[in-house]
Structures are given as structure tokens and as C-alpha cells.
């Protein structure tokens, strides 16, 4: 390997980037805008679920119950229906996500001290919102139920019943259970994976399509030098992007950051190497730019959004899919980022994911060097 040849390739690549200010702008602005849009937009916190009520009882008790729903910050009553037809229409149109139907004999049942069911009709097309809304509704009903019991005991003069046992729960690392706190580090990983793949996945196919590859092949440059020379300039750009994204995450979105900056820089650099290497591998394998771009889109966007643990918890996936996630580079980086941000983990504690990324980088390096042949057909 000769440093001189490597430098020449890297310089040529940099000049090419420099001469295309539009691409450079996109590369630098894209992460900024993505971070801003996604950072604001991505949230799983559910509040103000639109509710439709249908009070078939119309008694003071049923009104008390519905008032509790009105007072809850998790619900917003958008409609007071007067028939089942109206309720089902509201659900069909998506005007409300949940409908609370109080049965006609609600107050009689309460007076005779029976267990009284209240119906909750849920729009379960989005099952996650539905089950969270159901949990909130359960809580409201429980409060009401306890209130009814208390009144009854006061009326009959019985001593108040104590709850036998309670769960005293504490949440660690993300006390307020804000989805943003874990989503923001995930977005950084996603944006970097996308930018990285986009930077290198067309580098070789472009040379093939434009016909400059023949010239490149006739030079004494070796496959390894070519790879390093092609990746080096983009590594610099990638690190710049990473710095931008991480600063936005920490300073703008105020994602809690408990770890060490050096750990962050080292692991980010490693991840970028993997991402850029993967892009280069795609580019070496596919000679047309459309093809390379399609493959790059599919192998980065889908796995990072779906299989990295960024949104969907990996331990809930079936075993074969869980096995596939071990092949997803961003899985390790998402773990690393979340741990550094929320748990303040050190390099040593992150040993396993870091080792996996190193292995990943090595395998991709070997494959990418081999995939490129200095022959014309």
C-alpha cells in the first residue's frame, strides 16, 4: 500500500465533492432538517385521545363518571352521541378513538351494589394507541369505582376497606416515560446510517456509468488503496454530520446526556466506518447507479427503522427475526447511543456492541476489497 496513491484518490474524490456544491449542501443540510423534523414529529406519547360518549342512563352518577373522563388529561371528549348509530359513525370516520357507553341501568345497578360494566368501544386499527387508551380508561374507571365504594361505606357506617397490596413502581433512566428521550438517540442513528450509505453507495457505480472506471483500472492503484481513498473524504463529511446531529440532539432537543463525549466520538467513528464501508460494498457490487441506490435504500432505511430496536423492541420479535437483527449494523449503534445517553455507560460496559461493530467493519472491509475487481467485464 502506498500512501501517495491513497492520497491521490482521496484528493480526487474531495475535489469532486467540492465541485458539486449542491450535493455538498444536501449532505450537510439534510441531517439538520431530518433531525428537526423527526425530533419534533416522532413521539409515541398519547394524550388527548378523542372520546365519544353515549350516556344511556342520564343519571347524576353516570354524569359524574363522564366528568372524570372530561377531567383526565389523557382524554378529550369530542362528541356526545345519542344513538349507537352515531357512535359507530364516529368510530368509522375516525372522529374518535374510543367511545364510552354507559348502560341504561347503570344507576340502578350501583344502588343495588352490583358489579356494573361500562362499555368502551375502541378503534383498534392502531392497536398500540388502543391498548394505551384502554389502560387510561381502566384507571379512570378504577378511580370512580373506589369513589363509589367509599360513599357506600360512609353511608352504611362500615370502616373503610384497605387495599390489600399495591405496586409501588419506579421507573429508571427515563422517569417521565417520555418517548422522545429514547427516540432522539435512535433518530441520530437513523440519519447517520442514511447519510453514510448515501455518501458512498454510488462512488464506484458512477465511475462505471461515466466510463472513467477504465482509466482508473489502468492506474497502478490497488483495490485496498482505492477503498480507503474513496472512503476517507466521506468519513470526514460523515463525522461533521454526526457532530451536527448529536449537537442538535443534546442542545436543541435537550435529550438527557449522561455519558462521556469521548465514548460517543469513538463509537460514532466506528459506526460511520461500517456504514460507509457498506455503501462502498454496494457500489462495488452493482454497476448501475439506479440499482445501487435502490439496494442502498432498502438495506439501510428498512433495517434501521424496523430492526434496530429504534422503535420496535427487539426482544418482542420472533426468534428468526431476532436472529436477523444481529446482522443490522444500526442495532449496535442504537444500543450504544441509548446506553450512553440514558444510562451513561462507559466504553467497557459497551464492550459487546463495540466488538460486534469492529467485527462488522472487518468483514465489510474484506468483502468490499474483494468485491471490486480490476477487470472490465
Amino acid at each position, binding site marked *: 500500500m502506498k500512501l501517495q496513491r491513497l492520497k491521490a484518490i482521496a484528493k480526487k474524490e474531495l475535489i469532486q465533492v467540492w465541485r*458539486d456544491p*449542491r*450535493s455538498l449542501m444536501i*449532505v450537510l443540510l439534510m441531517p439538520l*432538517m431530518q433531525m428537526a423534523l423527526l425530533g*419534533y*414529529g416522532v*413521539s*409515541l406519547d*398519547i*394524550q388527548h385521545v378523542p372520546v365519544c360518549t353515549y350516556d344511556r342512563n342520564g343519571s347524576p352518577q353516570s354524569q359524574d363518571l363522564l366528568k372524570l373522563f372530561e377531567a383526565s388529561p389523557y382524554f378529550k371528549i369530542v362528541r356526545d352521541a345519542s344513538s349507537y348509530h352515531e357512535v359507530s359513525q364516529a368510530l*368509522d*370516520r*375516525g372522529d374518535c378513538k374510543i367511545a364510552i357507553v354507559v348502560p341504561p341501568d347503570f344507576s340502578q345497578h350501583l344502588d343495588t*351494589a*352490583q358489579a356494573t360494566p*361500562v362499555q*368502551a368501544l375502541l378503534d*383498534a*386499527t392502531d*392497536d*398500540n*394507541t388502543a391498548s*394505551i387508551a*384502554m389502560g387510561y*380508561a381502566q384507571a379512570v*374507571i378504577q378511580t370512580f369505582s373506589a369513589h*363509589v365504594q367509599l360513599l357506600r361505606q360512609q353511608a352504611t357506617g362500615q370502616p373503610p376497606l384497605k*387495599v*390489600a*397490596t*399495591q*405496586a*409501588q*413502581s*419506579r*421507573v*429508571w*433512566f427515563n422517569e417521565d*416515560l417520555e*418517548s422522545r428521550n*429514547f427516540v432522539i438517540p435512535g433518530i441520530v442513528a437513523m440519519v447517520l446510517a442514511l447519510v453514510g450509505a*448515501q455518501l458512498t453507495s*454510488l462512488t464506484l457505480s*458512477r465511475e462505471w456509468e461515466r466510463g472513467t472506471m477504465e482509466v482508473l483500472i489502468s492506474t497502478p492503484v490497488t483495490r485496498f488503496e482505492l477503498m480507503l481513498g474513496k472512503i476517507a473524504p466521506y468519513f470526514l463529511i460523515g463525522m461533521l454530520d454526526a457532530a451536527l446531529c448529536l449537537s442538535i440532539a443534546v442542545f436543541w432537543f435537550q435529550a438527557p446526556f449522561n455519558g462521556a463525549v469521548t465514548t460517543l466520538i469513538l463509537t460514532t467513528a466506528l459506526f460511520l466506518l461500517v456504514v460507509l464501508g457498506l455503501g462502498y460494498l454496494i457500489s462495488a457490487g452493482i454497476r448501475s*447507479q*439506479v440499482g445501487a*441506490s*435502490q*439496494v442502498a*435504500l432498502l438495506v439501510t*432505511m428498512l433495517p434501521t427503522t*424496523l430492526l434496530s430496536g429504534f*422503535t*420496535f*423492541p427487539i*426482544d*418482542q420479535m420472533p426468534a428468526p*427475526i431476532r436472529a436477523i437483527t444481529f446482522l443490522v449494523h444500526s442495532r449496535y449503534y442504537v444500543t450504544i447511543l441509548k*446506553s450512553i445517553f440514558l444510562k451513561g455507560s462507559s466504553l467497557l460496559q459497551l464492550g459487546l456492541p463495540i466488538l460486534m461493530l469492529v467485527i462488522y467493519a472487518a468483514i465489510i472491509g474484506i468483502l468490499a476489497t474483494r468485491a471490486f475487481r480490476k477487470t472490465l467485464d
Partner: protein
Amino acid sequence: MFGRIYNIVLKEFIEMRRDVWARFRLIVPPLIQVIVFGYAATFEVFNVSTAVLDLDQTQESRELISRFSYSGRFKITLNARSQAEIKNAIERSDAVVAIVIHDGYSALLRKGETAQAQVIVDGTNSNTALIALGYVNEIVMNFAQDYARDMARRLHGAQPPPPSVTLEPRPWYNAGLNSRWFFVPGVIATLTLTLIVNLTSFAIVREREVGTLEQIMVTPIRSMEFILGKTIPFFCIGLALMMLIAGTGTLWFGIPFVGNPLVLLLGTSLYLMSVLGIGLLISTLCSTQQQAFATNFFVINPLFTLSGFSFPIASMPMLMQYLTYLNPVRYYLVIIRGTFLKGVGLDVLWPQFVALALLGTALLTISILRFRKSLD
């Protein structure tokens, strides 16, 4: 005119037929994507890894713990012997939930006092944590009620239970609360977006970059005819993708399709207008494929993430919610889920159809005007 359009369409299809890999890339990755989505995309919570520290070691404490493991929601992966071990397990993510029952738990229970069971939850993934906490409360509450009933029976004999109000949930459209039903139909929207925008923008930018666009422009073909000839094949591919994914979803995953297929077909056609419009617009902004690629990423990712596909639009800040009105994916997802799961028709979905038609017309008009200009 139709002859010339037909010729271009034919040329595109011949090119596609010759390139085995191009066809492969059109069919296989979407299939893989649907299947992976079907299995992997879930917010449901089962078998949460749970660490247990039972310092009480009585019948009551064991009963409570066994209720956790029998619920199917929690899987006890560690029987700890000290608080330190619990702390370690949570910190290393070996366990997401930890249950600690202190010494004297059953003594308090028997005295009729409120006994506390301590629960620690790793909130790193707030969604899982929130749902798991819900189950924790439900299990402990049921245990408390059963215990109180037993106590009352033993002390006073059979007594009428205190009045209570219970919630009777009826999930409509997706009675099993199955995440798969929510996500797999949605893949139609995101996949056609990713593939079609990319294909359309590249198809034209490639001609420009390689220089064949000028050759085409000296032939008698008009720019409108050229655009139609270029986009019709992708329109067909889009429709084929929709059928491929819908077929896999219903046949492989058994997702119901209760609505009218014609409504979905009409919705898809309107949606494809917007998607083709976006692709064309990108192609007028870029002169090299590298630029087109960067722009595609730039555009597709927010459209995809801010569509309501996985993150509910209602959870976004108001400004973001307004911005999503400009996103065609948002409307198409409502149409897809409406036809698949709710079985509603045009009487309910007409606002979405109108919005898609407006967006599609606007995008196509702008891009065609810009395309004409970019040729001069």
C-alpha cells in the same frame, strides 16, 4: 400522439425485461420487506424479561410472583438474591422489569394493612415500559382483590361484594389488538413511495446525465408525451406492488380485507399521481444521479416517518400536525386502513380522496411546468 407515448412505454418495458436484476430488485425486496414487517413490527408486550427478589419467602409472596409468570406478559429470567443483583440486571438490560418483595410483606397483608410490592421498570423504551406498568398494576390489583375477598370470606362468611364499576373493552376492527393488522397494509404506502419516487427520479436524471435526453428532445416527441411515456410504466409498477403486498398480507398473514377493492384501487391511483409528481419534481431539480439520490433520501424519510405509519399524528406538536396535511402518505394510509380493516367506503373516505386528488394535480402540474423549463 398515442403512438409516440406507446413507443416510449414499450421501450421502458423492454429495458426492464432485459435486466433480470432490475426485475429481481422490484419483486424480491418488497416481499422480504412485507414479511419482515409482518413479524417484526409490533408494539405488543409479551414475555418481558423480569428479575425477582423475594425477601419474604412466604406463600403470599410466591403466589404474587407466580401470577406474574402465569400472565404470559412477564418471563422471570433471574431469581436475584440481593438488591445489588437487581440493580445490575436492570443496568445491563438483562431485565426490563424487577419485582422486589420486602421482608414482612405477608405479615402486613395478614394484619389487613396495605403491603407494598416494589416494582422497578427500565424506562429506556418508554412505550414498552408504559404498557408493562399497566400489566403490573392489573396483576397486583387482581391479587389484592382476590386476597381481600378470601379474607372477608374467612372472617365473616359469605358477604355481598362491595359495589364496583368495571370497564368492558370492545376493540373494534382489530379485536385481537394485533399490531400486524395495523402495519402490514401500511407497508403498501411506504414501499410504493420509496421505490416509485426513486425509480422515477433516476429514470429521467439518468437520461440527462448520460446525455440521451437531448437526443430524445430532437425527435418529434413533445415533452408532455415524454413525461407520460416515462411515468406510465412506473404507475403500472406501483399498482402491481400494491396488489403484491395486499396479496401477501391477506394470504400469508391472514389480514382481513373487509372493504371494497375498487375503493382501494382508486385511492392507489390517486396516491400514485402524487408519488410520480414527487419523483418528477426531484428529477427537475437534479442534474446528476448522485444529487437525485441524496434528494430522494432527504424527501422520502420525513414523508415516511411523519405519515402516521408508526408514530401517531395526534402525538405530534400542532405545527407538525399541520405540516402532515401536505403529506400524501398520510391520506393514503387512512384509505388503506379504512378499506382493509374498517370496511368503509367513499362516503367516509371522500375527504382523503379529495386531498389526494388536489395534491397529485398540484405536484404533477408544478413538475411538468418545471420539466419543460429545465429543457430550455
